[in-house]
């Protein structure tokens, strides 16, 4: 790629990032509502854990503080990951709804630039939102983070974003395959990830067929890695196998997602599915 071509792609990348930022700015009231929803969801899980003692669970048998942290890590991560996943997955559906999809697809921009611009904003904004919720949670539940290795947790979170983006790209092509119903399948994919990835329970409690599905979910390794870092003070060095698996998943999911997206785009162009009306 020439310097000029790289400059043009960088400009377009900035354009997608800026567009997403402008859209969120314009829909700020909705964002406040979604932030409140995200906060309430995490708090519910936190208070569920707080209530375990009242339900008769004996703290001599169960470390209730650790259990609470275990559940809150799951809830916070699920909030972040489902946000990024949805942002990427709905990137195309949103454009179809606005009627701008043809303009984006006829612009002289590589699809990887397009999707990465959207993803990058989702990651930055998702982290910001999750950080705010985390602050509220730490304040409200007086969490004991003395066993937490925040650097390790940050490393797992950073690497886990790569396969997450790959999964999102896979899902974002669904509205091109079925303009009417495709985007709704993203919700089903998200539900499946919630079930098999051990968000609120160890995957070991799942039947073997769900455990196999869980082994294929990047979220499983993300949750396991971050819990190890937050609850058991695992340094980055000890989490290298988890980081390696996540990086490998990303290395497979992003290129294969882009390849499938390109095939879906060609199909949509062949069948005339890029029109807003479908």
């Amino acid at each position: 790629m020439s310097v000029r071509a790289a400059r043009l792609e960088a400009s377009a990348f900035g354009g997608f990032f800026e567009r997403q930022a402008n859209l969120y700015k314009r829909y700020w009231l909705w964002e406040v509502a979604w932030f409140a929803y995200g906060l309430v969801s995490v708090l519910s899980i936190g208070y569920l854990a707080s209530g375990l003692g009242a339900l008769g669970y004996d703290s001599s048998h169960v470390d209730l503080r650790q259990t609470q942290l275990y559940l809150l890590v799951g809830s916070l991560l699920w909030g972040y990951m489902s946000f990024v996943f949805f942002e990427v997955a709905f990137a195309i559906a949103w454009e179809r709804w606005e009627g701008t999809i043809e303009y984006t697809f006829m612009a002289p921009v590589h699809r990887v630039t397009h999707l990465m611009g959207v993803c990058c904003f989702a990651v930055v904004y998702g982290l910001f939102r999750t950080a705010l919720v985390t602050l509220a949670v730490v304040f409200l539940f007086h969490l004991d983070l003395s066993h937490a290795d925040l650097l390790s947790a940050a490393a797992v979170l950073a690497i886990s974003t790569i396969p997450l983006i790959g999964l999102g790209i896979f899902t974002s092509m669904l509205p091109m395959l079925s303009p009417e119903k495709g985007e709704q399948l993203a919700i089903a994919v998200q539900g499946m990830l919630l079930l098999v990835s051990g968000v609120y329970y160890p995957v070991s409690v799942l039947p073997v067929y769900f455990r196999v599905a869980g082994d294929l979910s990047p979220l499983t390794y993300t949750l396991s890695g971050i819990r190890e870092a937050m609850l058991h003070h695992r340094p980055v060095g000890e989490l290298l196998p988890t980081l390696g698996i996540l990086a490998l998943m990303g290395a497979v999911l992003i290129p294969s997602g882009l390849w499938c997206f390109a095939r879906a785009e060609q199909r949509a162009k062949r069948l005339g599915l890029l029109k807003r009306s479908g």
Partner: protein
Amino acid sequence: MAVLEPIAEAPAVEVVNLSKTFRRAEKGAHWWTRASSQKYALEDVSLVIARNQVTGIIGANGSGKSTLIRVLSTLLLPDRGTARVFGHDVVSQTAVVQRLINRVSVEASFFKEMSPWENLSYAGRLYGTEGSGRRMRASDVLERLGLPLDTMDRPMKHLSRGQQQKVAIARSLLTSPTLLLMDEPTTGLDPRSKREVQALVAMVHAEGDATVLICTHDLQEAEALCERVVIMDGGRVLADGTPAELRAAHGPDATLEDVFMKVSGKELLTLEDEEGAA
């Protein structure tokens, strides 16, 4: 990246035996008994459009005008035949063609919550227009199009259809296209907005070196704006020439409407149809 300039001596558009079909489901009691048929949207269309001309394509709804524009915009893949823009193939040299074209469609498609400036800035970034002075250039174009500058930062949804269409034209002009594809840009506009948009098209042609291909079913518009007119119906080109040539070939007092009715055996849309289509 390949050469981004038009190939010298190549016509603006060269279409050879271009065909595009869409599958249509036939009426039937149940989906499993329902047959499908192929409907030609374009049937062996061959066409050469010279540079720096305003060429009009006239035809009723379903005549293939928009399909042709979509193929030239790289949004649809043809089944057979070739289409070249300034010598570059729209299928195999998509990226090069995309740098040379822009399009204004019947529906001004924007992110409706975003302002004209935010939408124009986004488009400018996708096409790599210089960041410094982009706002000034956008203001300049909008002012020339007669749009009050206080609309620049208001959400698009608060603008009238005529104003939105002017922003759509500004968006296409900001990217300095060598070929401007306009798909019924005045359909559904009130008479005053229609005249203003027509004046803009004339101005674009007079001021720049762009080639304009404009689809319309407004014969007066075609007569007023176009140096050459192509009549299409049923996906085929029925007649091609300057308005004067076409009229002369069908009698001394023939209007363009007479010509259309004679070659197609149909009347163009009534005003009600036109409004319905909009």
